[in-house]
Structures are given as structure tokens and as C-alpha cells.
């Protein structure tokens, strides 16, 4: 594990999460999770289903609360961080509101945060151009493809300039080809905005290609088994996937996952 340097964006100390505590259906979702994330990192959480990777993300987002342990987001409790709008979130489903145009969807968080109308509009346009959908502001979500919808969701998450981007299997529902294109797109955005990204995935190639660090998790109980530093240089390009080091790292992650599952 990489030791903390400077102020961490996320620091987790012995975090546990138990669902239905005390009942016969008690599930230990996370056990003794320790993790530090530095500003500007791209962290992937990878593991089989049930390993608690989404639970960890939702703890960070304060959508659920830890049973015990110490979790800080930007050195604040997650609840405070949520109220301060420190993070943007992207789900597996784009979750666009179909009664709003694309631009209005991107403006939704800005409306809630009471930005002035003119600024909202300008910001939405800027964000849509960032995800290369500048001409689709007046379209409705159902007029876009799945990949385009997910790009709108990313634009929406970035619109209020959070310091942290939480992504819960955002490309899981896309086909392989679109997913690879979206990966490139996401890296480009990440490099431009220098935002910290926590990225939940179950795809090894995706995790290795995108991340600066890959956090490998194991199920029952969910815990972190390995953290792999991905020393592939940025900017990563299409050819990165063909380098021997990429294969080495992917194989390493695959073996850690198998060990974790076997153990």
C-alpha cells in the first residue's frame, strides 16, 4: 500500500459495514478496510460481485453509513462532505430525467445549488463540450445512445466542479467497443480536470487501462486484498493496451483476484 503523502482526499481506517446487524440475515459487507487516496489519483475498485466495492463507494458518498471505523472525505466526515457537495456521482444507469433536455439535465445539480440561470446555462454548455456533446443540449435523453447518455451523466457530475468523482460501474451496461471509447474519453477528461476518481468496475482491462492504482477486493467478508500500482505512463493511448507491461499488470490483477476468490 502506498503511504499517505499530503492531505488525502479519502482516508479510511478500519472501516466496517455490517448489513442487518444482529439478525439472522447479517451480512458483513466490509471488514477492516484501510485506504488512502491522494488528490488527482485514479483509483479503481475491482472484485467479484459481493466484495463490497459498491458498498465502499456508497459509504464515501454518504448514501449509507459505516458500522464502525473512521472514514474521512476531504478530511471531513462523509456527511459533511456530501452537504458541501464535494463529490459528483455517476451510476451504472445514466439516470437522466427524461422530462428534461440534455442541457437541463446537466443543469440539475446547479439548480439545486442555486447557481444563477445564466451561469447554469454557460456551465452546462461547457460541460457538454467537454464530453463532446456540445450540439445535443436541446435533445431529450431518449434521443441519445447509451454511451452518449452516460457522457451526459459524467458532464452532470462534473458541472459543479467537485474535487472527487465517484463512478459505480459507469460503463458496465455498454458494449465492449463503446466502453473502450468511453475509457479514452474519461482519461482525457480526467487529465484535463485533474479530478480525483474512484471507479468501481468488474473489468480487469478497464481497471488497468484507466487507473493509477487498482484496489483488488475479495468477497465474504468484503475486504481489500491487494493494491496494484499501475506504472504505465500517462497519457495512455490505444496502443497502451498492446504493451507487455499492460499484459503483465492485467495478469497480476487477475491472479490476485483468483487468489482472493480461492481464499
Amino acid at each position, binding site marked *: 500500500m502506498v503511504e499517505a503523502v499530503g492531505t488525502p482526499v479519502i482516508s479510511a481506517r478500519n472501516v466496517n459495514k455490517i448489513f442487518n446487524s444482529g439478525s439472522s440475515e447479517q451480512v458483513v459487507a466490509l471488514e477492516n478496510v484501510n485506504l488512502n487516496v491522494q488528490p488527482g489519483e485514479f483509483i479503481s475498485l475491482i472484485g467479484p460481485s459481493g466484495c463490497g466495492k459498491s458498498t465502499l463507494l456508497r459509504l464515501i458518498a454518504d448514501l449509507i453509513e459505516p458500522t464502525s471505523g473512521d472514514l474521512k472525505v476531504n478530511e471531513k466526515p462523509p456527511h459533511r462532505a456530501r452537504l458541501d457537495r464535494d463529490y459528483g456521482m455517476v451510476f451504472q444507469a445514466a439516470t437522466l430525467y427524461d422530462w428534461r433536455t440534455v442541457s437541463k439535465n446537466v443543469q440539475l*445539480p446547479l439548480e439545486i445549488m442555486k447557481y444563477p440561470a445564466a451561469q447554469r446555462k454557460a456551465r452546462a454548455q461547457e460541460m457538454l463540450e467537454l464530453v463532446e456533446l456540445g450540439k445535443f443540449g436541446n435533445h431529450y435523453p431518449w434521443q441519445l445512445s447509451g454511451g452518449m447518455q452516460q457522457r451526459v451523466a459524467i458532464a452532470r457530475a462534473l458541472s459543479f466542479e467537485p474535487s472527487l468523482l465517484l463512478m459505480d460501474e459507469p460503463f458496465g451496461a455498454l458494449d465492449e467497443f463503446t466502453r473502450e471509447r468511453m475509457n479514452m474519453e474519461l482519461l482525457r477528461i480526467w487529465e484535463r480536470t485533474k479530478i480525483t476518481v474512484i471507479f468501481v468496475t468488474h473489468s480487469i482491462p478497464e481497471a488497468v487501462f484507466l487507473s493509477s492504482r487498482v484496489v483488488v477486493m475479495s468477497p465474504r467478508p468484503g475486504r481489500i486484498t491487494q493494491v496494484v500500482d499501475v506504472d504505465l505512463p500517462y497519457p495512455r493511448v490505444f496502443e497502451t493496451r498492446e504493451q507487455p507491461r499492460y499484459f503483465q499488470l492485467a495478469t497480476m490483477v487477475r491472479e490476485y483476484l483468483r487468489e482472493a476468490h480461492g481464499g
Partner: protein
Amino acid sequence: MTDSTHDNLSAASLSVPTLAGMPVAALRHWGLVALTCAVLVLIVVLMTTYQTATAETPAMAQSTLGPLSEWLAARSAEDNQPALLGQLARQQALVAGLDRLDPVTVSDALRKGLVAYLGVALVIGIAGLVAQSREVTWTRRVLLVVLLALDALVFIIPPLDNDSTQLMLFVAIALLLLVLLFAPGKVSTFMGAVVVFSSLMLAWEAAKAVGGAVDYKVTTPQPGWNYTTYATLDEMLTNVQSGAVKVAIVDENDVENLIAPYPEEGADAAATQYPDLRMLSDLDTDANGLLGLPVIPPFPGRLVAVVPAADAETYTGIGQLLGQPVGTYTGAFSLEKFLNLPRSLVLLDLKITNDLNLPHLQSIANALWQPARRNGDLLLGRILADSGWFTWTEAAIGFTSGALLGFLLGVMFAHSGLLERGLLPFVVASQTVPILAVAPMVVIWLGAGPASVAVISAYLTFFPVTINTLRGLTSPHPTAIELMQSYAATRWTILWKLRFPASLPYIFTALKVSATASVVGAIIGELPSGVRGGLGGAILNFNSYYVSDPTKLWAAILIAALVGIAFFVLVSVVERLVLGRRVQAE
């Protein structure tokens, strides 16, 4: 050799199926063109019929326009007119410098209007024929206009015996429906509704036609029918003996032990109670029916005519009795039953087909275009339209308050599980109580008047709105809510930015149900609250006259349905405006 066999096979499997050597596509094309031509010919025939008709021609006199022109002529003599059409008639009379318009003049004017109307329909029909022959995409739309034009005529052209005017209209409509089925072009909701409506009208009249052929039908007496009613069978038979009436019409079962048949079949006439009377059981009806009293099909077996023995041999046909004094008696075979309850003469009772159960569509339309009271200054249609508007305003107040109440309850239930679990069973229970039981109580609490009506209407309105609001507010996917929470949105923000917009399609579905229910609620509410200005009062009133004049009740039902449909359409239009392009997505 093998090759050529193979070729033959593939040629056979590829060729278009043929009928009489003609490809199916061409057959369909020319078939539709021919059918459209037939429709046009029928329109021309109808035009000629009315072009050559006069005010006295039955096709004109008994049409909806006949009584209307008489009413208009009567109205034209009076200065103060509440009805718009009456004012128009008066104006025309003044322009023409007359005290009053002649009914024949009015009738002629209306007849010319009808011919012109048919002319317009013909021109559009020709356009349809051209479109049909070129298979252009707007063919269906043009033909639909013609169909609508013909549909309107169903309410004008009268059903007549020995006259095929109405039949031609129905044949034209049937052919046009067939053409519309196969014509090119898009099928819209409106077109579907019109086609189904036309088919229903055809089915309605077809049921009457089929029923008329197998059902006994007795109509009111003709002028030649001269009859006397006696209190008892004995009294009547005594009067036949004394010559006060020439003949008595009775049920054979009532007299078979009292009177000998003619010609005698071994029975000893002297031994019967009335030795000088004979019953004639094998007389046939003639073209005029039974003594000018049309009985269809001819003379049912159980009817007999009782005549003095001395006259018996002079009667060879029942037609000879026409115009002679005839007797019948009260009781099982009384005049009232004989005339007003055709069932006593019916062997096969097809209830839907007689004019009491199922009046002609034209009769209903005719009722709308006639004064509500004899020589009244308002047409029934105008009175019912006013009633409909009155009832609608009550329903709209009930609908609005009911929808608001329903929405608020839905919002409350969506936000508080405690309230939902506690109150929802009572909301459901409220709807299991029949509105007819609740209505009188509301009237006692709130007093008789439109306020009670609106409350009763609201009572029927709020429930679907509550249920669908609740369903709609809880419809967003959990991640959509989590997304809002990730923006630290308050409950209020989540309600207005997510839950409420997401629930709108559900709410509008409920509002469409409620719109029609609120009209029903208002009509039912009017009955116990003594409100007489609305459709409820009208329906109650016409209900009591149903036996003598069913068309007025049918007309009231028609108007009530139109009010409900209009309200439904209004809500649908608002829905389309509010939901806009979302409707397309769903």
C-alpha cells in the same frame, strides 16, 4: 433438363399469387377503385332523391329536417326568441317581408342545403377516387372526410317502409368502410374511432333490420282502425251479438270453449255459450296488416276474429273488416296491452330490436331537433346542451377539488408511511360504498344544491388521483433518488424536481379516468339534491316517459356521453401540452 426444372421451380415460388390471372395487388387496386366508384354512385342517387323530393315526400317529411322546418316556420311568427335558430327564422321572415315563413319554403331551403351538402361530399369523394387510383398516401384521410359526411346523414335520413333511401346510405357507408380498410395511408386514433363509430351505427341499424324481419311489430292504429274497448269478454261478445260492433279481436284460448269455429268441424254450435257467434281463425292478413293494424309477419295463430254466425261466410279476408267497428276487451288481451305491449303478439322476442328498446338513430337525432314540449320555443337539443353545460360546470368544480384533494393525499402518503398505512384503507373503503348511498347523506349535510353535486362528483374523482399520485411519486428508481441525495437536495427539492415530474404521466392517467367519473358523479349527485337544471334532472324526467317516447332518454344519454368525452379530450389535450415530447418517449 435438370436445370430447366430448377428454373421452373424457382419461377413458380417467386411469382405473385394470382386470381383469375390477375395479380393480387392489381385486383386489390381495381377492387378499391370500383368500390369507391360505387360509393360515389350512391351519393349521386341520394342527391337525385332529394333534388326531386318535395316537402311532402316521406324521405323529406319524415327526415330530421321535416319537423325542424315546421318548428322553424312556427318560430318565425314570434318576436321574442330564446333560441338562436328561432331568432334566425324570425330574421328570415322579416327579410322576406312575411308575418311567418311557410313550412314548405323552409323545408325546401333545408332540402337544397342537404343537396348542396351531398354535392360537397361527392366532390371530396371524387378527390378520394383520384387519390385511390393513384395510391397516394393521403387517400385514407380524404375518404375519412367522406365517411364522416355520410355518418352525419344517418341522423337525418329517415327509415321508411318500402323505401330504400336509408338503405343506400348504409350500403355507401359499409362500402366506404371496406375501402378504408385497404386504402393506403396512415391510421390515426381519430380515424380508428370514426371507423368503429360508423361500424357501430351499421351494427345498430342492422340489428334492427334483422330483428324487424323476425320480430312481431305492432304500431299505433291507422286512421281506418275503428275500435271499442269493453271491460269484460262477456260484455264484448254481447255487443257483437247485438250488432254494436261487427267483429271482435280476441285470443283464441279465451274463446275456444265458448264459441264454435267457422266453418264448423263437427262441433255443435247450439251447445256453446254463444250459439250465434263464430270465430274465424284462418283469415289471412292482407297488405294493410290486420285491420290496418300492421302485424308482421302475417296474422299469428292465436288471434281470432269473432263475428255473428250470419256474417261468417261473407268474410273471406280480414281486409274486409277494415274501417268497420271492431271490439276488444280489457284484461289479458286489452287494448292497452294489445297496442303498447307488442310482446303479447311476439312469438320470438328479440328485445333489442323494437323501437322502444332500440330506437332508430335517426329517431334519436330527430328528437334532438324537435321542441322539447309541443310548440315549445326551444329545441330539445338546445335544452340538453344547456343541461350538459350546467352539469359540466358542476363536474368541473368537483373534478378540480377532487383532483387537488387526491393529489395532496397522494403526496402525504408518499412522504409518510404511517399516514399511508393508517389512512389508505379508509380511502379504499370510501370507494366501496356505493355513490348512490353516499349522495343522499351529502345532500342532507350540505343542503340541496350545486355544492352537494360538486362534492359528490369530487368523491368519485379523488380516489384514482390519490392512488396514481402515490404510485407516481414513488416511481423514480432508487438511484434517481440517490442522485438527488448526492447533491444534498432537501425532501422538498426531491419532491418538486424529481418525484412530481416523474409522477405526472401517472397523475394524468388518473385525471383522464376522473374526468369521465366526475361527470357521472355530477349526474348521480343531481338526483337526490333536487338540482333540475342538469342532465341528471333531464334523465330522471325522460326516464318516466320512456314507455311512450324512448328517443328523448336516448338523446339525453347521447349528450351525457358527449359531455364525458369532451371532458376526457380536454384533459388529454392538457396532458399533451404539459408532458409535451415525453409522450413520444413512452
